[in-house]
């Protein structure tokens, strides 16, 4: 069995091997001398799929071949900048290489590691500014970020419990078990005002207190790792890059509320995260940090995995419990509070992955430290998955209160290809679209809901002028209709009718009454659905109707898609560039094009079936869609 003393010893021992890569945590130190060097390879979801294991092998081989000493190579969790992966950082200098292929490894070893010469062609494109080479923390993408939940992601080796311990891992658990009583832990959590990161933002401390105060012979702690929003991978990155941080948060919660059993409900589509969690749980048990009599304090807590089949609705707390209990994952009415009667009728705490990852730092550094970051309403940081039409797609963690503009333009690098920014969608299928005029809104729970969207779990999709807002609403609703569990009438029947209307509008068949019907459907679905899925399903429609009504009207009244995105509403035209070569007329499958040789041709828009064959055939680009 491990003692607190031994925990400290592991920390001391392990830190020695980690020296230079720890410079990543301490910007002051970057570039200073260190006793070793470190090649850090990103093993996040995006990069991992591009054979980073092989890249690592090649580094090890080549370094051995060159007889270099004191160079460590390791794969860590996600660096965040998935756009430019596979990414590599070299310490102590903090050089940031991107889009690394296995063929590039030899050159990096020979030049960078052997001769201290930076391989400029492999540098990340933002790591070079006006001929100056920037270390990674000065690259725009990272400058404004601040990491709590992702503190270890991109630094430690996710398969090493020792490296987790070296960065104060399990020290918070040791602290609560040896220095704090249960009520004190609850007080710290309440004071920190950590709000749930799974979507609704419920204060975590208050939730824990409810279960803490409720007497029962058995209580449960559940980590919600169902993460089903399209495009979201915040929780996945934490679980893959720093699994112990979640286990430690759960154990602290178990101690505080008086539970000895935790479950992690994770989707089976996350096999890598499942594997790393299994490894982490095994390691923690072997070290006596999970299981019976943890750290010799008499506290018992163990964690098991439960794999979900990947239904979005199973992320809803009550559906999740139904699923763990072996039933069909359908939400149940909230007759009792989960913290009183949850899983198998016992007091249960359900928190999100990111919520749990925030717990240990709060315990170690205190509630005041946590509240010094972020805003009064929403202390701390939030992880976002930045996607869509933005240059730097990837994972970012910023203090709450950072504005949308800072996230999208300063960190995300703005839109791509010179296109104009149009809106940002936050909160996934439960969220809304925010137009440009609100870009200076600080990101926190209250501010986002005030402008008709939600924080949600952290999806952030940037839209530009070529995105049709009706079609975006249709896209999200299509998702919801597919994912509705089918239990309650407003969600099952109502969302389907909404989707049918949106489809009609994007196909140019919409009527003015359809707009009214959308609004009344939105109201009934929102106000009367059983669970959060239905209650928020109309948000993408409501917010786009509010901010982009003229776009809906253009589709309905003028049969026109201003963004030029709805295929059915586009028409093909031949411009004056036409040289009369007749190619288009010969390629049109329905003979809709007429014209004499060497004269301008014309498309009969009535006959045209919009297949686009003419556009492809035209040698001078004279055919346009509008």
């Amino acid at each position: 069995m491990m003692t607190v003393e031994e925990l400290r010893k592991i920390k001391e021992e392990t830190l020695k091997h980690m020296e230079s890569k720890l410079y990543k945590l301490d910007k002051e130190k970057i570039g200073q001398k260190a006793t070793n060097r470190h090649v850090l390879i990103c093993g996040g979801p995006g990069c991992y799929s591009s054979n980073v294991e092989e890249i690592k092998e090649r580094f090890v081989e080549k370094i051995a071949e060159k007889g270099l000493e004191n160079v460590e190579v390791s794969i860590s969790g996600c660096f965040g900048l998935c756009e430019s992966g596979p990414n590599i950082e070299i310490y102590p200098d903090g050089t940031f290489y991107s889009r690394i292929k296995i063929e590039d490894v030899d050159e990096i070893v020979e030049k960078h590691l052997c001769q201290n010469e930076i391989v400029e062609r492999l540098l990340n494109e933002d790591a070079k500014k006006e001929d100056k080479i920037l270390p990674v923390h000065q690259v725009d993408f990272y400058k404004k970020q601040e990491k709590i939940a992702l503190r270890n992601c991109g630094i430690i080796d996710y398969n090493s419990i020792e490296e987790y311990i070296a960065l104060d891992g399990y020290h918070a658990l040791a602290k609560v078990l040896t220095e704090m009583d249960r009520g004190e832990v609850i007080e710290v959590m309440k004071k920190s005002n950590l709000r749930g990161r799974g979507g609704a933002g419920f204060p975590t401390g208050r939730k824990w207190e409810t279960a803490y105060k409720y007497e029962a012979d058995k209580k449960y702690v559940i980590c919600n790792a169902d993460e089903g929003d399209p495009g979201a991978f915040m929780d996945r990155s934490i679980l893959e890059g720093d699994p112990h941080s979640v286990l430690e948060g759960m154990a602290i919660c178990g101690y505080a509320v008086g539970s000895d059993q935790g479950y992690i409900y994770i989707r089976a589509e996350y096999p890598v995260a499942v594997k790393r969690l299994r490894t982490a749980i095994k390691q923690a048990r072997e070290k006596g940090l999970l299981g019976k009599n943890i750290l010799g304090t008499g506290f018992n807590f163990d964690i098991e995995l439960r794999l979900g089949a990947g239904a979005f609705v199973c992320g809803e707390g009550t559906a999740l419990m139904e699923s763990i209990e072996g039933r069909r994952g359908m939400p149940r009415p909230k007759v009792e509070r989960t913290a009183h009667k949850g899983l198998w009728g016992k007091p249960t705490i359900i928190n999100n992955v990111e919520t749990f990852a925030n717990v240990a730092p709060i315990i170690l550094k205190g509630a005041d430290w946590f509240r010094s970051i972020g805003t009064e309403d929403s202390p701390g940081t939030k992880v976002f998955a930045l996607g869509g039409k933005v240059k730097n797609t990837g994972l970012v963690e910023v203090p709450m209160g950072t504005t949308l503009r800072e996230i999208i333009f300063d960190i995300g690098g703005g839109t791509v290809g010179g296109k104009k920014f149009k809106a940002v969608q936050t909160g996934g299928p439960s969220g809304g679209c925010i137009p440009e005029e609100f870009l200076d809104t600080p990101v926190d729970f209250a501010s986002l809901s005030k402008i008709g969207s939600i924080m949600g779990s952290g999806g952030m999709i940037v839209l530009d002028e070529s995105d049709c807002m009706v079609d975006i609403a249709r896209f999200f609703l299509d998702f919801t209709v597919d994912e509705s569990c089918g239990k309650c009438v407003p969600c099952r029947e109502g969302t389907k009718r909404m989707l049918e209307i949106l489809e009609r509008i994007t196909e140019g068949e919409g009527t003015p009454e359809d707009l009214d019907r959308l609004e009344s459907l939105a109201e009934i679905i929102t106000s009367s659905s059983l669970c959060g899925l239905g209650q928020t399903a109309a948000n993408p429609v409501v917010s786009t109707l509010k901010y982009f009504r003229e776009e809906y009207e253009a589709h309905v009244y003028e049969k026109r898609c201003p963004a030029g995105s709805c295929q059915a509403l586009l028409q093909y035209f031949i411009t004056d560039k036409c040289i009369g070569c007749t190619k288009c007329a010969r390629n049109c499958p329905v003979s809709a094009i007429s014209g004499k040789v060497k004269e301008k041709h014309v498309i009969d828009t009535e006959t045209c079936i919009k297949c686009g064959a003419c556009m492809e055939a035209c040698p001078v680009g004279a055919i346009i869609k509008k």
Partner: protein
Amino acid sequence: MANVTITIDSKKVTVPSGTFIIEAAKEVGIEIPALCYDPNLEVVGACRLCLVEVEGSRKLQTACSTKVWDGMVVHTRSERVVKARKEILQLLLDNHPNDCLTCQKAGECLLQKYAYEYDVKFREHDGDRRPALVDTSSPYILKDDSKCILCGKCVRTCAQVADRQVLTFANRGFNTRIVADIDLSLEESSCVSCNRCVTVCPVGALLDKRLMGKGRPWEFEIKEVKCKVCEYGCDFEVLSRNGKNVAVRAKAPSNGRPLCLKGRLTTEFIYLDEPYTPYKKENGEFKETTWKEALGLDNIIEKLLDKEEISTGVEYNG
């Protein structure tokens, strides 16, 4: 348990704390429309028709699954409530066949009743509808998916008998259906034709086939009888029309009564003037059978015949 006093539509009522609003309302004669609620079944809150306004709550609350608290003030027919119910009924009708003229359930159907009460009508639209899957494989139960409103009562009542659990939900969202086992026909499935599901279905999605064409609900004279086959003594109704007993149907099972086919057939045999042909399921196939076999009297009758023949010499034609 302590009592609490609440006000429902300006009527005061005192009930044990922990009572659901819908039950408290019944105490003062207020009926709140409900399609998925059944006091004998687990509460699921699926149909959302029982929404009521509770003072102090921003959102409408479901009366079937919200417990009363002392001093609660409830409005069950406010403008907001009525509007929501109309919309929900409309969503249901938009996905329900307009077949009330000939539907066996007409007159007893809850959807019909509430649509009438809230003045909601069928309307034309070209959106999707539930597929018209009709399962005619069983001689006892007709399952018409197109009429199902997915209240889930059938699934819940079926699951109450441990060795049955035949009906389940399948698929998701708009494509959700009630299926037997792994989407088998009633004939192929493990369905034992106890008709529990038929007794709870609020619409014409699960019908007692032996009742079909025998008359409209308002034409029947109903006599309640108890089954004599076993000690549970399940409740049945003998339906007569023009002075003739034409059908027997099971009443909703309560107090742990299981209902079974043998009990129903026995009751038919006892009361009906002309009992219909009995069927028996063997290896996933329904076959016509004799009454003595259907009632499980094979050996007994042989024995009886043997004995009676000796003593009376009378011949029976089983």
